[in-house]
């Protein structure tokens, strides 16, 4: 499903965040990208989610080479991914439900159908009762669950997350891990960049360990 070959990313100024990283992820796998701070986890997350482009190497997802893709085609590729960011990137000028509906509006779904699916996604993460709440009124764990609901509402083939438990206490973090595991169980490919080792102990995922931009 995902094949990375000799991926490298050098930022302007010369800093090389990734160097010759090659790996593959099969459909339905749960993969953990780990490493210490500055190892290149977030950079790899950004390359996988097409937020950034590699400076060398190729990244093929579902047969499409993302590295050589036209700029205008990238938004359509992103819709196949469910993205969960460390800082959630929620919109605080609207309700929880309206945050979840954003990907469905982008896809052009009629409002009624979008609301039905949005509520189902909120239900999956245990936030249906808070659908009208503004995200600012939610706890850190709830905000992260809301971000996950937004990521899965479009029924993506791949769920990509960057440090989803990074800002959470142990209990909230564990709840988030369980939600990812639930999606993995129903066949969603889950790729998570994290330094949280408890994932490995609980779910025994495939692990990609990065160190100074290299795959160990």
């Amino acid at each position, binding site marked *: 499903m995902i094949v990375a070959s000799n991926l490298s990313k050098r930022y302007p100024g010369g800093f090389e965040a990734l160097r010759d990283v090659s790996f593959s992820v099969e459909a339905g796998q749960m993969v953990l990208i780990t490493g210490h701070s500055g190892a290149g986890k977030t950079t790899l997350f950004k390359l996988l989610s097409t937020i950034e482009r590699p400076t060398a190497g190729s990244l093929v997802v579902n047969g499409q080479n993302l590295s050589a893709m036209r700029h*205008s085609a990238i938004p359509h590729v992103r819709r196949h991914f469910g993205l969960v960011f460390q800082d959630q990137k929620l*919109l605080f000028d609207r309700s929880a439900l309206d945050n979840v509906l954003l990907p469905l509006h982008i896809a*052009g779904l009629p409002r009624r159908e979008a609301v039905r699916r949005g509520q189902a996604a909120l239900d999956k993460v245990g936030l249906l009762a808070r659908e009208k709440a503004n995200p600012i009124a939610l706890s850190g764990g709830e905000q992260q669950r809301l971000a996950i609901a937004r990521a899965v509402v479009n029924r993506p083939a791949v769920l990509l997350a960057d440090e989803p438990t990074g800002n959470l206490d142990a209990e909230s973090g564990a709840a988030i891990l369980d939600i990812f595991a639930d999606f993995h169980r129903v066949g969603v490919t889950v790729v998570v960049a994290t330094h949280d080792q408890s994932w490995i102990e609980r779910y025994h995922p495939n692990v990609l360990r990065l160190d100074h931009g290299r795959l160990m």
Partner: protein
Amino acid sequence: MNTWLSLHRAALASAFRRLSASPLNTLLSLLVIGIALTLPAFGYVALDNLRALGNNTSGVQQISLFMGLDASKKDLGEIEDRLRQSANGRWRFVPKEDALKRMQASEGMAEIVASLPRNPLPDAFIVEPVNSGPEALEILRKEIAGWPKVAHVQLDSAWVKRFDAFLRLGKLMLWMLACLFGAGLVAVTFNTIRLQVMAQSAEIEVARMIGATDAFVRRPFYYFGALQGALGGLLAATLVLLALRLLAGPVGELAALYGSAFTLRLPGWPEGLALAALGALLGWIGAQLSVSLSLRKFD
């Protein structure tokens, strides 16, 4: 198709929401756009009415044909025949005796005329062609000048030429004014949308990250610009109509004093809609420029 419609419906709804979200700002923007469009639109209607006034003023756009002093009745008959054939309009004969009487009747001319040994005035024809355009009048003048026993042809077109030149100058000034205010409208929309893009930068950033195309991001701003421009255009049409309605009475009274039945022509629905469409187009251009520049920072 359904998806396409759904996306456009959502963008239009979003534009309406943004317009109604801050009524005072919207009202002020509409006033600026409305006034910017009112001035050239009012000028256009005023020129149109002036043109109509010029065309309707009878007895002014005419050619005076003076016969030679030796012209006989037969010659006059021939000229009448030619006028019947070539001058598409009205004409009348002014015998030299009538001309002299009219001259005598003029203040201070009676003694001078009485002292003349004989009538120095020629027979004349006053021609009022239907086609009173300066070029058509000039062509007819040249044709008549070639007829036998015609001593002089005077095209009373000095004022026609002046009037035509005035209309052309007015039209040019109107175009300049329209371009100036059109640019103003584009600038107003540009700035409004730039502020909106700044205010919604978080939403735009997130939307792009989760798969929004450029078109998805831009569309609501385009609709907003076009909608704001169209509403401004309708406001301008209303202002022009109100102003003309207020002026119609006094102008009619003034025209009546000069013996004219002239009435102001008021713009109709087509003109109002054209103004709204023009506003929408300029608003869309402003939005296009603003969004293109403002979204660069998200690339």
